[in-house]
Every structure is written in structure tokens, then in C-alpha cells.
């Protein structure tokens, strides 16, 4: 009987260690992955600048290339989440990609283009990127620093929500929130962004959705957009 007790205690310790792994260690892994992704982005930006013809004015940034699998294509900043919050984005929303930062729904629009630029992120674990999505408000800015351009999106009130709420709670099967013109948010076509994450924090029964529209698109060389200053 004593052996059985020891087995139970051991199992308990292993489960506690798993909690430490989920809550703490995945954050460490995510920070490392982000540093890696930032380095890749830096190189990609430098390569693009080096490849640019000299006589092109700064204002005419080259058109962005199609996103490549396994390559981060931008950094997201959300002033509402704090000035130290930034996450990298890469194509794909499988668990493997989301361990490295935010994921772009393949097949959705690219940043700044017509349609819906759709991004997924963990609410908890792996650095808790979208932990504070419920705090987002109408008019908050989402800034993407791409390879060649800045994109600034402004969060809208979805047409299906009352009051001034910006965050929609829905079920995981509700994939139409990613439509080019998501009917729960907009009536007319435009250049939109969608953020999706888990609800509740430690669950996966629901999803939180936030939408915004493109407000500006400027070359990287033009400097940080106003939304990130001050």
C-alpha cells in the first residue's frame, strides 16, 4: 500500500510540473521564438531595402510579396496592450505556428489589401499574446510593421453588437467571422482585419473576435505611425 501512495504523490508532482510548464515555460519558449522571428524579420527588411532601386522615392514602397510558409512577415503592436507588447506574425494557424507568435489565416487577405486580414493568437500559454483582447475598445489601433510598410487598423463596432462593445463572443465553428465581408461586423466590402482568440482564458469552448478597418498604409522609411508615438 505504501508503494501505491508513493505513485500517487509522484503523479501529483508530475501534474504540478505540467502546470509550471504550461503557465511559465511555454512563455519562455515563446519569448525565444519571438527573438528568432524578429531576427528573421530584420534580415528580410534589410534585404528588401538593399534590393530597392535607388531612384525610387521613399513614398513609393514596393508592393508586398506573397507571404511564404515558415517566414514571419510582420510585427504587431497594439497600444492598448502596453508599449512593451509586440508579437510577430507568420502564415498558418496550426498549434506549431501559434507557438512562435501570432498566426495568419492562410487564404485570408494580406495586410492592407481588399478583404479580411485574419490573425489568430493564444489567449493563454505561449506568452499569452492575446490575453487582453477583451479590453480592446472601439477606435483602438492595431499597427502592423510589415517588411516594407506600416499598416494601421482601427477597431470598429461590429454591426451585430449593441452599445459600444468591440469584442464579439462566438463559437469555434463560426468561421464566417473570417469572410471578406464578415456579416456580423460590416455591411460593405473594405480592407478589414480580424483578430481571433480563445474564450475563456483556459478553455476552448468559445472564441473572441475583434474587427477593424485599414486606416493608413505608409512606407517603413516614413517612420513610426502616429498611433505608436507618445
Amino acid at each position: 500500500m505504501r508503494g501505491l501512495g508513493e505513485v500517487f504523490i509522484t503523479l501529483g508532482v508530475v501534474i504540478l510540473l505540467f502546470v509550471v510548464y504550461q503557465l511559465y515555460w511555454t512563455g519562455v519558449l515563446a519569448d525565444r521564438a519571438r527573438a528568432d522571428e524578429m531576427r528573421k524579420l530584420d534580415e528580410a527588411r534589410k534585404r528588401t531595402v538593399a534590393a530597392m532601386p535607388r531612384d525610387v522615392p521613399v513614398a513609393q514602397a514596393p508592393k508586398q510579396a506573397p507571404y511564404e510558409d515558415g517566414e514571419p512577415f510582420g510585427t504587431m503592436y497594439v497600444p492598448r496592450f502596453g508599449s512593451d507588447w509586440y508579437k510577430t506574425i507568420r502564415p498558418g494557424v496550426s498549434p506549431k505556428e501559434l507557438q512562435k507568435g501570432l498566426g495568419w489565416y492562410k487564404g485570408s487577405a494580406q495586410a492592407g489589401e481588399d478583404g479580411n486580414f485574419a490573425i489568430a493568437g493564444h489567449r493563454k500559454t505561449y506568452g499569452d499574446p492575446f490575453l487582453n483582447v477583451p479590453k480592446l475598445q472601439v477606435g483602438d489601433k492595431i499597427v502592423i510593421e510589415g517588411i516594407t510598410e506600416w499598416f494601421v487598423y482601427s477597431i470598429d463596432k461590429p454591426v451585430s453588437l449593441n452599445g459600444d462593445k468591440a469584442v464579439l463572443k462566438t463559437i469555434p465553428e463560426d468561421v464566417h467571422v473570417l469572410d471578406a465581408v464578415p456579416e456580423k461586423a460590416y455591411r460593405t466590402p473594405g480592407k478589414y482585419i480580424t483578430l481571433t482568440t480563445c474564450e475563456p482564458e483556459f478553455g476552448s469552448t468559445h472564441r473572441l473576435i475583434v474587427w477593424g478597418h485599414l486606416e493608413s498604409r505608409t512606407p517603413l522609411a516614413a517612420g513610426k505611425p502616429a498611433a505608436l508615438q507618445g
Partner: protein
Amino acid sequence: MYGWIWRTLPGNVWVKLLISLLLVLAIVYALFTWVFPWAEPLLPFSDVTVDQENVTNTTGPGGAPRPAGATGATSPAALPGGLPG
């Protein structure tokens, strides 16, 4: 179990203690490196996708069917696993 391990370890108390410590570290390392990453997707709270079956039914609740061609640009509605969490 632990009593048996302790008796089996060679050397005096200090050597036993050192070996035990190394064993514990090795086990924790193995858990964090292989076991937990493997177990993670098997647990419900990190289950970030939904059944394929459910996805095909998405037009059911929540909205009128969309007129064909009204969406304009590409849509990722053919998402294999629903919205990840």
C-alpha cells in the same frame, strides 16, 4: 518505491544524495523536453480546433446563407479545423 531506490544507490549518504539529485533533474528535463510537448495537444484545454464535421455545418445557426460571389476577395472559410483558440 523510493525506499528501494535509496537502498539500491551505491556509496554513502552524500553520494546517494548527489545521484538522486541528478536523477530528478534528468527526469524533469525529459518531462519538459519530450513528455509535456507530446501531452499538450492531447488535453482538452489546449484543444484549439473543432471537429471537421462541425465545420461543414457552419451555415446552420447564426445567419442567412451568403449570396454567391458577394464576398469579393478570398475567404478562408475552407478552414480545416475551425478557429484555433
